[in-house]
Structure formats: structure tokens, C-alpha cells
């Protein structure tokens, strides 16, 4: 039955064949099935992800409160946003997460990878270190907040160690650093797992050759491990950029007693968008929130391309 169908189809439409290679009934049956296989996923994806993205760009050029007429304001929303101190704070925080927290996270992950390579109990340590990455950001943030609470465990330990006046970790002075340290704790595990898998794929004879040439541990690391892991590190850099631009729930949990949102010093791009979209005073509304979102999107695009470009220049090693 099916075979006959396929033959019939192949016979019915011979002239549109692109190349002689694809003329088999096998391929033509598959081509007819293509729609059933791909279209549902594509439709849902376009409808819920792509179309809203484009609409967000459209909304960002309008003043709009969600209902009623839209008023075209050109780049007015962008100008408003760029003058908004809350946006400046969000920009700085997001950039700090992107670059500073990113650098520390990658360093921690890299050091752990190197240490775990020839350590007893590596599987166990890897499994444990990875665990925080599985927990919802909100949970980690609440635990972190409780650990660093004035009466929390960290200060308890510090008092036991003889520190008379342990710092107020969640006070205005330290809140930012405390939260950033929490983000490192949350993220390091994922990248350790990825780096370790990449390091495991480096063939041993490279290290043996380096040993024979009298390379020290640092030289082995510098000249064998680092170049061979740059591809994976690049993928991770893209992943990190995207996730840094999405940082939301970890900050959200540090909302003080004042209300639903954390202090502005902890705002990131998503928080800024969320807060302006549903602001109580509704002065800014959807337009400005969309403008901030478009900026995030543009930044994520630029970063992805940039990282790809930097990596493409390196020689790609096959092993």
C-alpha cells in the first residue's frame, strides 16, 4: 500500500525534481510527510515566540497601556528609558552579572574541572556541586537570603569565630555583592559539568606527549587543555550571556518588606520590563517595557554573534 502510494507520487510529479538523487520514492514519500512532521511545531513556535517578539518591537514605538488606541511616538520610549535612572541601574546590574559574575563563575567552573580531573570521588563531587543548578532560582535565593540574614548561619559562624560585628550582608552596602555571590553558587555547577565533559574528551596522549616534553602542570593546562576546550567555552559563553540577560527570579526573592519588587539596586533588564509594564502608576506602560525588551534582544543577538566571531578565528581542532 504505502510503497504503491510512493511510486504513484513519484510518477505523478517527475518534472519538479531538483536533482536526480532525490527522485526515489523513498524521498518523495518523506517530502509529502514533511508538513505533518514539521508544521505543528513550527506553527506553535511562530505563534507564541516569534510573532510576539516582532510585536514587541512594534509596541516599543508606541505609547500604549494595553487597551485603547496606540499612539505612535517614534523612539520616544527609548529616549524615556535612556533617561530613566532605574534603567541605568538595571543596565549596570545586568552588565555586572554578565561580565563580573560570568568571569568568576567560569573561573570557578574551570578550576573545579581541573581539580576534579584526577581527584578521588570526582563523580560524587560533581554530582553534588551540580545540584544547586537544578533548584529553582527562587528557592536558592531564599536559602541564600536566610544564610546571610543578620541572625542567619553565616553571621552565627562568624560570631563563633570571634568576629564581633559581622557585616550586615543584606544591608544596603553589601546586598549587591551578597546576591552576586549567590548567583555564582547557583551557576557554577552547570558549567563545571559541561567543562568536565569537554575535558574528558581530550585524548590522553596529548598529555602524555606534553609530559614527555617535560611540561609542567601549568604548561600542560595552558597549552593542551585551554586550546582544546575553547570551543566548548564559547558555547558556554553564549549560554551564559543569554541566561545573564534573563536574570529575574533570583533577584525577585530579595524584595524587602516594602512590596513586591526588590530594591532598584538589584533590578535587571527583565525586572525593569516587568516593573514598568505593570507599574502601579502606569505612566510608562507597555511601550517603555517593550523598548527595554527590544534592547535585551538586540544585546543578546550582538553577544551571540560576537562570541561566535571570536571563536571562529581560532583554529578548530579535530581530535
Amino acid at each position: 500500500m504505502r510503497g504503491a502510494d510512493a511510486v504513484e507520487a513519484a510518477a505523478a510529479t517527475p518534472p519538479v525534481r531538483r536533482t536526480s538523487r532525490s527522485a526515489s520514492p523513498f524521498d518523495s514519500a518523506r517530502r509529502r510527510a514533511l508538513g505533518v512532521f514539521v508544521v505543528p511545531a513550527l506553527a506553535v513556535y511562530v505563534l507564541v515566540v516569534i510573532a510576539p517578539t516582532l510585536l514587541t518591537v512594534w509596541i516599543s514605538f508606541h505609547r500604549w497601556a494595553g487597551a485603547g488606541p496606540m499612539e505612535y511616538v517614534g523612539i520616544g520610549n527609548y529616549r524615556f528609558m535612556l533617561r530613566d535612572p532605574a534603567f541605568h541601574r538595571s543596565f549596570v546590574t545586568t552588565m555586572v552579572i554578565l561580565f563580573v559574575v560570568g568571569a568568576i563563575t567560569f573561573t570557578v567552573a574551570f578550576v573545579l574541572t581541573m581539580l576534579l580531573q584526577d581527584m578521588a570521588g570526582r563523580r560524587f563531587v560533581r554530582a553534588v556541586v551540580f545540584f544547586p543548578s537544578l533548584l529553582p532560582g527562587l528557592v536558592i535565593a531564599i536559602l541564600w537570603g536566610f544564610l546571610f540574614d543578620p541572625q542567619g548561619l553565616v553571621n552565627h559562624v562568624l560570631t563563633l569565630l570571634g568576629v564581633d560585628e559581622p557585616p550586615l550582608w543584606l544591608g544596603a552596602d553589601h546586598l549587591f555583592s551578597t546576591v552576586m555571590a549567590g548567583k555564582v553558587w547557583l551557576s557554577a555547577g552547570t558549567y563545571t559539568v559541561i567543562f568536565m565533559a569537554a575535558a574528558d574528551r581530550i585524548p590522553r596522549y596529548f598529555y602524555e606527549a606534553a609530559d614527555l616534553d617535560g611540561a609542567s602542570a601549568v604548561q600542560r593546562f595552558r597549552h593542551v587543555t585551554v586550546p582544546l576546550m575553547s570551543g566548548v567555552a564559547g558555547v558556554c559563553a553564549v549560554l551564559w550571556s543569554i541566561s545573564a540577560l534573563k536574570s529575574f527570579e533570583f533577584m525577585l526573592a530579595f524584595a524587602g518588606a516594602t512590596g513586591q519588587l526588590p530594591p532598584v539596586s538589584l533590578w535587571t533588564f527583565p525586572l525593569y520590563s516587568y516593573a514598568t509594564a505593570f507599574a502601579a502608576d502606569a505612566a510608562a506602560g507597555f511601550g517603555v517595557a517593550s523598548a527595554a525588551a527590544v534592547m535585551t534582544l538586540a544585546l543578546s543577538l550582538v553577544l551571540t554573534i560576537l562570541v561566535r566571531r571570536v571563536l571562529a578565528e581560532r583554529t578548530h581542532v579535530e581530535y
Partner: protein
Amino acid sequence: MPTTTTSQPARRDARANRPLARPRLTRRPSRRPRRGRSPLHLILLPAAWSLAIFDLFVVGWLFLNSLKTTPEIFEDPWGLPSRPRWHNYVDAWNVAHFGEGVLNSLVLVVASGIATLSLAAPAAYALTRFRWRWSGPVTVFFAMGLGVPAQSIFIPLYVGMDRLGLVNTLWGLLLVYTATNLPFAVFFLTGFFASLPHELEEAAALDGAGPGYTFWRIMLPLTRSGLLTLFVLQAIGDWGETFFALVFLQDKKTISLALLNFTQTVQYTGAEWSVLFAGICIIVIPLIALYLWTGRRLVEGIAAGYGR
């Protein structure tokens, strides 16, 4: 290096037959030589262990605190509970609405997981295996979705769903989760399908199987482990999802909303930390169970998904 010289002939033989796999597999157990350790190692090694111990400690401490009374948590942060208060869990489940949150989140995670898989698996299969001019571009088009953050789609989605009456329903959130999971799912599964041998499909076609039958009865079962890994990864991601839940639900609760709500009341009243800890345990325990069950496969799945 005596080991290399003695194994030299054997290695060469093995190489002649099987280029790579043989020698590496047999030599796996002896990892890198342990000599040449720098003093840096001696400082960092304890640091690595203490990080692991810290993580374990936090989980244990969380569980212990969930069984204490609130005064006990503050007065005796290190001690065991005088008498385990399982009632905290009952309070968290009922009074703090974690029960409702768990049920809603469970429905969302399972339903959106299944929906994503049933959309992404055929698409990924067709994109890797069918000879089609647009396969490459469409795959890239899906992958682009990985870079679209939640904040750049929520406004039109909110307005649209509001008009369709989908705000404050689980259906709306289900649709959003399913769609936002698609890019990663397609990306992950294309890697899986690409690694399967072509001969099976050709043999199936010779036996008269159409593409649908081949996919469903032959190729899909071969990717079972990949599908399971993907399902677990998505479940972990969506279990505590906050942004979309916060936007699309108002009085309904997922676990993250229950948690957020309760944290705020705790901060206002300063009471019932013990119930909060019990609530966190309710969220975390399923994840621990899942991790213990699928642990190694999960870790390797993540490494494979990104590491290439």
C-alpha cells in the same frame, strides 16, 4: 613512562583494527598521572571538597529546619529539633497553599513536557533526516528561539491571551511553556536523531513502511533515553518557573507563586519560618528524588546537549 613503552605494540595492533575506541577504553581506569601536582592543588583541593560539603550541609540543614519550630530555628540553628514537627508540612500544604502550587505545577510540567516532545520529536526527526532544501535554515530558525528572553514576548502574549480569556488559566501557561521549550527541544533532539544509522530507515522503506510508521515504530524507540532526558530537563526548568507564572496567573498558584507569596507574608509578620522551610522542602524533595533516579544520565545529557 614505562606504561607507554610496554603497551606500545598492543596499542598499534588495536589501532590497526579500530582507530580510536579500543585503546582509550582499556586505559580509562588509570587517569592522568598524579605526579607533578602543584602546591596550588593542595590549597584548592580542600576548597573543592568544602564546596561539596557546603552544598550537602545546606540541604541537610534545610530539612532539619523544616522540622523545628520557628523559635528553635533562631535559638539553636545547629541543633536537632527537640521533637520533629511534621505538622509544619501540613501547614505548608494547606495554609500556605503549597499543596495547590504543587498540583498546578505538576500538571503544567507533565502536560507541557508531553506536548513539547510530541511537537519537537517529529520536527527534529524530519529536519535531520528528510532531504529538504530548508532543513538547515529551519533548524537555525528554531535555535534562534534560545536567545529570545521571556521579557521580550510577555507583553503581546499577555494582551493576546487576555483577549482569548486565557489569562489566569493553566491552559495559557501550558501553551507558553510548551512553545518556549521548543527551541531547546528541537536543538537537543536534532543531535540525537543525527547520530542514528540510516540503514534502519532504508530497510524499513524496503519493507514498505511509510515515513510516519518508520518514525513512530523504529526511530522514536531508539531515542527513548534522549526523550526521557529532555523531559526531565524541561521538568526541572519549568518546575520553579517564575516570570511567566507571575505574569499569567492571578489567583491561581504554582509552587513559585506560593513560595513568593508566603515569603512576603513571612517578611511582614516575621513568623512561621519553619513553615516556609517545610514549603521549600516540598519543592526540593521531588527534585532530589528525580536527581537520584536519573542523576548520571541527566548530567551526561546536559554535557552532551551543550558540549558539542
